[in-house]
């Protein structure tokens, strides 16, 4: 197992390098640069001066190597759009609201979704099942900015129970968290339902019933555990999704999070920030899938990571 983890970490390093190269090249292949205004461009002399100040006049490979050398020392540069701080400082402040929003969204949404999925699987073709399907379908198909708007309209504008948007106090977090949680609830309800139905149709469940085990023990000790694999597969990546912020939920509810930076860094050709964001996601996905693989092995002894042992 340890050898497997080490091998995987090495492959993570290679993935990291490959992704950084691709992102870097794509970033610079996009036409335009940080000082190319559409209507009233600065003079050529001034543009050249500004480019030199940021080191953008150097050959691309020099720029890449310099940047990656910095990354090795946890120096991701200074964002063009916020020159008073480093990229790391920017990320660490903007990340907090995104983590609170996304983290609570998943932590509340996932268990709810699992419960709903279980209830649906155990009461197949009953009204609970239909309700769960409806919730899952609605949650997955209605865009989150529409859900957000409805929530604001109903709870803030009509009922006046909660503030419409903003982030200064926890009272204002409730609506965006609900909006955000809709996705994990829907996803988990669907996955849990189908995984459990699949497991319950297996012969070993019939055997357990024949042995006289209580339905509760069958469900919680056997079915749920055997259905957990697909749930783990979705969980960690979904958690990373939260860390990167939801652009729409954050915009609709005026959350000062990370989401908007994904767009603005590309729009403004903010190369250091764009690279840092992409590298961060890459790194987190690599680690998340590694952890998922390890958790698979822990919950299901039939899976042996790293080939035959």
């Amino acid at each position, binding site marked *: 197992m340890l050898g497997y983890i080490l091998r995987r970490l090495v492959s993570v390093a290679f993935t990291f390098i490959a992704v950084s190269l691709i992102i870097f090249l794509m970033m610079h292949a996009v036409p335009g640069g940080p*000082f190319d205004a559409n209507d*009233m461009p600065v*003079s050529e002399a001034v543009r050249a001066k500004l480019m030199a100040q940021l080191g953008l006049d150097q050959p691309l490979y020099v720029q890449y190597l310099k940047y990656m050398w910095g990354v090795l020392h946890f120096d991701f540069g200074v964002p063009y*759009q916020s020159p008073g*701080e480093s990229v790391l400082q920017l990320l660490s402040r903007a990340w907090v609201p995104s983590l609170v929003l996304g983290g609570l969204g998943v932590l509340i949404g996932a268990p709810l979704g699992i419960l709903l999925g279980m209830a649906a699987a155990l009461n197949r073709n009953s009204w609970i099942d239909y309700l769960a399907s409806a919730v899952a379908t609605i949650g997955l198909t209605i865009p989150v900015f529409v859900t957000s708007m409805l929530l604001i309209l109903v709870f803030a*504008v009509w009922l006046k129970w909660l503030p419409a948007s903003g982030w200064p106090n926890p009272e204002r977090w409730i609506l965006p968290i609900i909006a955000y949680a809709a996705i994990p609830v829907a996803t988990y309800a669907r996955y849990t339902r189908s995984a459990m139905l699949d497991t319950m149709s297996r012969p070993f469940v019939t055997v357990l019933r024949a042995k006289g085990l209580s339905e509760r023990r069958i469900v919680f000790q056997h079915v749920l555990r055997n259905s957990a694999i697909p749930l783990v597969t979705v969980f960690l990546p979904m958690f990373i999704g939260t860390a990167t912020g939801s652009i729409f939920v954050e*915009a609709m509810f005026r959350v000062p999070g990370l989401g*908007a930076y994904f767009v603005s860094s590309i729009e*403004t050709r903010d190369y250091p920030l764009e690279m840092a964001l992409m590298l961060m996601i890459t790194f987190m996905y690599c680690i998340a899938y590694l952890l998922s693989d390890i958790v698979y092995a822990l919950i299901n002894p039939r899976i042996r990571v790293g080939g035959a042992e």
Partner: protein
Amino acid sequence: MHITRKLVAALAVATALTLPAMAQSTISAPGQSTSGTYMDYMKTVYDRATFAELLQVPIATFDKEFELTPMAAESWSQSEDGLTWTFKLREGLVWSDGEPLTAEDYVFALQRAATTGYDFAWYWDFAGGIKGWKEVTEGTADVSTLGLVAVDDLTIEVTTVAPKPYLPSVTSLWYPVPKHKVDELGDDWALNVDTIVSSGPFEIESWEKSNNAVVFTKSDTYTGPWQAQIDRLEVDPTLGAPEVGLPAFLAGDADYSFLNTGQVPVAMSADPDGIRRNAVFATSYLSYDLESEPFNNVDVRRAFYYAIDREELTSTVLRDIAIPAGSILPPGYPGYNPDVVAQATFDPEKAQQFLADAGYPNGEGFPEIEIWIREEGGYNGAIVPAMAQYLQAELGEHLGITVNIRQLPGADWMDGLRGATNNIFIAPYEYDYLDPSNFYGIFYNGGRHNYFVPEYDALVAEADSESDWDTRYALYAQAEQVMIDQGLIVPLVHPITTAIISSELGGEATEPNSLGFTPLDRLGHYFFTHLTK
């Protein structure tokens, strides 16, 4: 009795505690951009932090009637030859850290702008025409050659390359930079609330960089005109998108909000008295290739001028997003002339007559034409394509002309315009500086359209350097009369913005101007200092 007395005492204490809080007036306003780099208008305009300009006092600025009002300057005068302007600053103006505000701070602001890649540098060449500006920004001349001198602490001299009678209005975008702070910290003084100093009616309290939200407070040190009448101004750019702003407004989180087209009826039914409209200083017009068939014939152009029902256009397809345009100048813009506007009528019979005079009775024999429009975002994205389709129907109905529409990317459209590879265009233009010379310059001596109309050019050239304002406006009106008589363009519409404001807001700034428009934060200095709550 005892209980009552206790109650009264408790109430008195509670009232005493809440009174100071109630006396504080706070405005919650939408901002414009959710990201901003420097809190310094003279460092960057396009990437500046939210309302950076509110912190500093310009030389002069505009009120809601677009009358130029002296701010930091007390007075100004123009030399005999028209090339040099002398601005006298008010005494007693200070920075919020107590340092005196001097002519040097204004001169330094532009010297730094000319040498360090200011993204608004073009303005000081194009609108300001400051002597040496072009050479200094291109790096071929030294900054000392600029036509800018701080004669003493309260006197600034500006020299221009040609007489610029409107130079004082150009100074509405001239803010001081605290030289003493830049000497100490460089441009970084404008990155951190602790080191930012102000010279205008507001001070800064906080700046949330994640969304560029800023809290301003009334300045204790500002002694100039237009003091703030509110205590706090909270500006949040995330309220700037109407989709977010209106719900927040309806829930009581914002004091006003801009509206998108779909929201206007909702807002109208919520509070019709709260609706405010403003004309954007922009105009969409039809322009032609004057050299080639069929638009080389003035009667054809005159026919088009009378064939368009702007009232119907702006009350149907462009309802709530545009108003009729009868002049290249939008309403409220300096030099706007109602006599010019009144001529732009819809008169299908006259139009048909002109077309018949041109040799195309009922459109017979008129070639099929293709109107070229530019791919647009922003307000033009909603206006231009819809308007093109309307024109297509109108010209077919009233003149019997077959019109096609072709949409092109900006660069291709511009090539078509300048290279005359097509003969008719819808062209939108938004002002760059507040003077008629800006709009009339579009058609001057080639300009944007390769128009060379000697009679027009002579009038515009004369007006551009005329120092007497009545004469000047009269000359521009004559120039526009040439445009009308020769059918150089057909003014179509001006875009408008619509907003809803809370009934709690008061003050002059919330009342429409004499033309019925309320510019709101388009005139930040005026708006936020003439607002009460």
